[in-house]
């Protein structure tokens, strides 16, 4: 149990209702959307930046770790308190502070839900571009920590391309702005350094984001394939034809089954793959692009390539795509999602490798991915309660990541490294690369107390990382 003094002082800062210590409260925070669990010691929910600064100072005085948490929708264990300490939830930071449409800018608190930003400005013809599939639940702060992308990353880039400034609380409790309200601040791009730092450098308390104008026309097509190879080849061909779609998404047969069982939208259950192609721009241009895309689909043997006839039909396609991860529960009690990246041209080869891995390890793998970016999400389906299954899952996961690297790709596109992939980051970077990153981190976090045991291949953590529901031998994940 954490010290009584620490708890007393935290209560003095944020009020007793917002310091959780009872097991029937904190157990809920032992996990995010990943498969990792560590029982937290205490959870604190400050209401404003002054309270955050006071909590951070207190943590320094008591020398305890701080793990920031947004909505807890992360897929890599980033919000799991691997070494105990304080979980600092930013759930109460949920106000949109400023909307400046003339300058296409908004300032929001980190606990604001991603989709709520777009909801606030949609009536004026604007949107916030990064759209992770969990956008109805994930927070802007979590997006900043993980440099999150989404289906429309293909056209608009990831979170770092849309964040121009951050207010952060540093290790000593200082409150500073990095970047500003205008793009291209002079000096070091410290805002850029913070985005994607996974909570290892400080606590973000305000985020200045760019807003974008909605395009005149959006058209979305669903193509149905009897072969995965044909679907991935279509993606390669569409981009080669000079069309840059806003999104190119593939779901395989197993994913379609999950969606249709969980929250049905009427996808063809007998198809091997469906491809979503979305184009945006001027009406004439999108009409022409859709024609070209349909021709390419037909040439690759698509059984059907249908353009959504209205906004409702379009939203239904995206509902299916964005609910796909959550729908895995309809097929199996657990899923372990990978986030590998390969060069787009290697997609057909990579999908064949995934299918081989599925057979080799005798595990069902559901594929749903951002095909346009070559960003794969193989979901390994399993039951944690079945003896020996977890070990096979871990090996199969490692095999997919190794395959990504062999094909010239990377181990994570957008979910972050967190606890999950820190053992693999060494496959991607050499010691000197990692040393340079570690030095930057130490500038901001000299005591190593901000979200420790994440991101870097550190030695065994002292907290027990538990994979739900059965405990595993310590060190397995390190």
């Amino acid at each position, binding site marked *: 149990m954490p010290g009584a003094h620490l708890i007393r002082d935290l209560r003095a800062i944020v009020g007793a209702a917002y310091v959780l210590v009872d097991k*029937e409260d904190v157990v809920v925070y032992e996990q995010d*959307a990943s498969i990792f669990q560590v029982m937290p010691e205490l959870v604190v929910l400050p209401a404003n930046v002054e309270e955050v600064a006071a909590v951070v100072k207190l943590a320094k005085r008591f020398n305890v770790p701080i793990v920031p948490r947004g909505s*807890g929708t992360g897929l890599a264990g980033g919000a799991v308190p691997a070494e105990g300490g304080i979980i600092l939830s930013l*759930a109460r930071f949920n106000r949109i502070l400023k909307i400046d449409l003339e300058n296409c800018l908004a300032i929001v608190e980190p606990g604001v*839900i991603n989709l709520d930003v777009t909801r606030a400005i949609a009536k004026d013809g604007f949107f916030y571009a990064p759209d992770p599939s969990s956008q109805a639940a994930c927070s802007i702060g979590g997006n900043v920590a993980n440099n999150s992308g989404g289906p429309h990353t293909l056209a608009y880039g990831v979170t770092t391309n849309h964040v121009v400034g951050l207010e952060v609380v540093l290790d000593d409790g200082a409150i500073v702005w990095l970047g500003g309200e205008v793009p291209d601040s002079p000096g070091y791009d410290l805002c850029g350094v913070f985005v994607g730092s996974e909570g290892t450098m400080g606590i973000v308390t305000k985020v200045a984001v760019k807003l974008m104008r909605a395009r005149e026309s959006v058209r979305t097509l669903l193509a149905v394939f009897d072969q995965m190879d044909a679907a991935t080849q279509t993606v390669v061909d569409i981009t080669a034809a000079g069309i840059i779609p806003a999104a190119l998404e593939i779901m395989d047969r197993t994913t379609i089954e999950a969606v249709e069982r*969980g*929250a049905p939208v009427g996808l063809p259950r007998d198809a091997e793959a469906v491809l979503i192609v979305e184009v945006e721009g001027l009406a004439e241009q999108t009409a022409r692009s859709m024609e070209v895309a349909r021709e390419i689909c037909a040439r690759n043997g698509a059984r059907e390539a249908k353009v959504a006839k209205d906004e409702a039909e379009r939203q239904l396609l995206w509902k299916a795509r964005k*609910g796909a*991860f*959550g729908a895995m529960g309809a097929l199996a009690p657990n899923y372990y999602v990978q986030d590998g990246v390969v060069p787009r041209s290697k997609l057909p080869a990579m999908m064949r490798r995934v299918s081989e891995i599925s057979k080799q390890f005798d595990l069902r793998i559901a594929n749903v991915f951002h095909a346009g970016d070559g960003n794969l999400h193989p979901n390994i389906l399993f039951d944690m309660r079945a003896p020996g299954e977890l070990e096979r899952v871990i090996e199969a996961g490692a095999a997919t990541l190794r395959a990504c690297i062999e094909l010239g790709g990377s181990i994570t596109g957008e979910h972050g490294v967190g606890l999950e992939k820190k053992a693999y980051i060494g496959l991607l970077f050499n010691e000197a690369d990692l040393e340079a990153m570690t030095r930057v981190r130490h500038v901001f976090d000299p005591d190593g107390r901000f979200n420790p045991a994440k991101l870097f291949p550190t030695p065994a953590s002292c907290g027990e990382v538990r994979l739900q529901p059965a405990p595993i031998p310590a060190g397995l994940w390190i």
Partner: protein
Amino acid sequence: MDYIDHIQISSEHSKIDELNIPELYQCVHCGLCLNQCPTYRALRLEPESPRGRIHLVKAAAEGRIELTERFKEHLYLCLLCRACETACPSGVQYGRIAETAREQLGPPGSPFARALLNFVFTRLLPFPRRLALLFGLLRFYQRSGAQRILRPLLPAKLREMDSMLPAVPAKFFHADAEVLPAIGARRARVGMLNGCVMPLLFGDVNAATVRVLRRNGCEMVLPKDQICCGALNIHNGESVAAKKMARHNIDVFLQANVDAIIVNAAGCGAVMKEYGYLLRDDPEYRDKAERFSALVKDAGEFLAALGLVGGLQPIEMTVTYQDPCHLAHGQKVRAQPRSLLQAIPGLKLVEMPGSDSCCGSAGIYNLTHSGMSQHLLKEKMQSVAATHAEAIVAPNPGCMLQLRYGAQRYGPHVKIFHLMDLLDRAGGGSDPGVK
């Protein structure tokens, strides 16, 4: 129905292993439910979210945490609105998880409140005559002037509860006969659940429902032996009497040989559609319960599918629609009531944001958790105000009482209607066949 009187009050002892239900393992804790949960939105604490509560039940089922008072508070702060089920991509049936947990925990509140609730659930609700007597006394208390004299003398908490007591109308619902013929050509033979408080507080809505259905070609069967559906019991951790009530109603309505069983209270309809699940371990009743559940239809759902016949008189009015949680989330009925409203000439429907978000009524929640309930009601009334509607249509008695109270306490001063009220009025209003 004397047998119901001999029910043992459910034991205080909780069996944790019975919490280990398959529904738990369908949740992959993705978090998409969080922002749809009214209590999470209000408090921003994850133990007060659907994912959090599922995790708590799972942790208890695994023996990692005890079923403490704190655990119980988390499970009972939930409104059981089931908005999370609408948001869930995996189709997790949260309601079943929460109801199973509550069954193990027993009713909420202090030992006195629990005893009182147990009395209500087992000795009062299953007995329509006792209920009528109680509401008769309540009516006397309100109309004799006793309420006016006594209210200022009550302690603050009771005074607040007293002010929330709905006015008991002069007439209770009573049908002349068990079978009322269709008006015009007969298109269906349907039964109707009278409900427990519906005939006492909303007798006019029951009468309107009967008239609307008869005008649309339904021969109505109103079995005299029917009793309360048991929804309040099930939502508050009482299952023994609830199952007896379910079996009783199943026998009564299956004997009536009807094409559908019409319910004009969303909470009752949702529970009756799940009798099959409630009685899944009862070999004698399992199949009958499934058959019964398949016949249950919300009044609006049934009428929209049947199709309206005959013309409707115009009603010049702007209304907004509140989706009862157990209709929108519990029964997935959203479009049908709206389409029926739009069929009324002159009536203008203005949607409010968050129309499917709970108003805070939630059965007896407004009494057991009045703070959260009033917070949600205040927010709801602000959404209503933004629509500039003159009335709210909410086809469920709990919502109607809550919204009526909201209009009076927080404004705007709108009228509250059941969907059947307006359809009845547009169809020609009262008819001497039904008192």
